């Protein structure tokens, strides 16, 4: 399927070769990730071609960075401190939009590809995430909480950087693997591909990926959210039934 998409795109891309800018033809291995009963995560393959004007890759080549981002979510980050011998939450900070998932892979370390300003504009790298912190706290406090949040998300494998995660072959074909862990929330994800040369972003292409719960899992999650009273009654009934069935079964046996 993806091969056909690539084939369909190729003539289009060649038409635009009159311009002097290279063009990206990206694709992802799956545009939907289904969460089913045995979901333990998924592996996304991001791949595509770089079409240079004139059809030939320049000698010194170009670099690729891919970013997969999950739907933004508002959250509170709490910080524990020792109070009277007990570690408890003391300070907290709000962030209005943090990506629920953020993975960046590049053909070389990001610091070698772009300067800080460019990285900040395109949100390349964990240091450059725009987390929109809530107003009212000092910048250094905000940075402390940002670092805490990023560190926590990294250890949950929800945020990660892979500075050598993109392979480029023949200077024109690239591919990258991105691991999607089982903990990811559902929603619309984006896979952005950046073509970078001489510290400048030459082309950007975006593909959408939808992460969804399917079948039974979706039904349960929806029921818990929408018909919460009935859901509670069913949960009680099921546990009563199981408890009764267990004792009845064993008494006979």
């Amino acid at each position: 399927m993806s091969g056909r998409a690539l084939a369909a795109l190729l003539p289009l891309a060649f038409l635009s070769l009159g311009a002097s800018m290279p063009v990206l033809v990206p694709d992802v291995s799956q545009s939907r990730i289904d969460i089913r009963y045995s979901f333990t995560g998924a592996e996304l393959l991001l791949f595509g071609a770089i079409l240079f004007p004139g059809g030939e890759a320049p000698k010194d080549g170009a670099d690729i960075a891919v970013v997969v981002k999950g739907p933004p979510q508002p959250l509170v980050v709490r910080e524990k401190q020792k109070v009277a011998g007990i570690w408890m939450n003391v300070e907290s900070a709000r962030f209005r939009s943090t990506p629920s998932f953020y993975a960046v892979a590049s053909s070389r370390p990001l610091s070698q590809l772009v300067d800080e300003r460019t990285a900040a504009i395109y949100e390349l790298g964990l240091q450059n995430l725009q987390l929109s912190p809530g107003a009212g706290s000092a910048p250094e406090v905000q940075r402390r909480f940002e670092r805490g949040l990023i560190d926590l998300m990294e250890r949950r494998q929800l945020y990660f950087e892979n500075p050598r995660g993109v392979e480029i072959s023949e200077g024109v074909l690239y591919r990258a693997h991105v691991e999607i862990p089982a903990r990811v929330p559902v929603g619309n994800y984006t896979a952005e591909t950046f073509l970078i040369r001489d510290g400048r972003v030459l082309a950007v292409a975006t593909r959408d990926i939808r992460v969804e719960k399917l079948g039974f899992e979706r039904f349960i999650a929806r029921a818990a959210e929408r018909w919460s009273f009935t859901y509670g009654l069913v949960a009680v009934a099921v546990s009563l039934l199981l408890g009764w069935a267990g004792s009845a079964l064993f008494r006979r046996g």
Partner: protein
Amino acid sequence: MDVYLPVAGLSVNALMIVALGGVVGLLTGMIGVGGGFLTTPILIFYGIPPSVAVASAATQITGTSVSGLLAHRRRNGVDYRMGAVIIGGGLVGTLVGGVMFRLLQQWGQIDTVIAILYVVLLGGIGLLMAKEAATALDILKPKAGKAAPRRHNPLIAMLPMRWRFYRSGLYISPLAPLLLGFVGGMLTVLLGVGGGFILVPAMIYLLGMSAQVVVGTSLLQILFVTAATTMIHATTTKSVDIVLALLLLIGSVVGAQFGVRLAQKLKPELLRMFLAIIIIAVALRMALGLGWRPEEIYTVQLL
């Protein structure tokens, strides 16, 4: 075998959860406590969000208490009048507990409160049980010259409006069991425990109920109060994971049956000593957890 929990939003090893349910069920069958005090901390330790762990453990306890209750009913070991009073208090307690849970969650202190309550309650009851079982096993000598314990606690005898509770052999004010039920209900919502480990000693030592109806009546209360807790969590925090509860139940229903058989072969004092040691170990682990520098200084909560 990995199974995705739709409400918790993560995958767990199904066999691990069934095994955990099995161990807890074994304890339930052997000793007659719900075992929520073990399930909830272990689930949290396993990475399940605390609110989901508390809510789903309560759902599981409803199921486990059914078989016990049926067994006690057959032996005429339930005081329904007393049960109704305690349940009445318990239902009010779950409502108040639900409000407290939400407030504490907003303030970010729910984890600390859960841990402190566990340490204080489990530590205290574990030590009491250990001492009592040790005396019964002749490890500790009972203190000589101590007066026999009074049948009625003077504070409880002071309360007005006495009722007769025939099965329990009591003539006391319903306010005392009402209050006891209230505390039990609150703890169920906050801690995801059935509250049997509090109710049973309180019924024996504070109310002075006759021993044959204590466990059956406490199971009746646990059944209703955990069912109410499931409803409260389902409608407010929306954190009941029916798949998680099912996995736990499968293990605990089977485990409970083996526990009952095992209990008939062992001395009851030994069983109580065993339970006391488990309770003290859980309390110690949680106390250390409060004082040690936690692995995660930062925690996140979705808004």
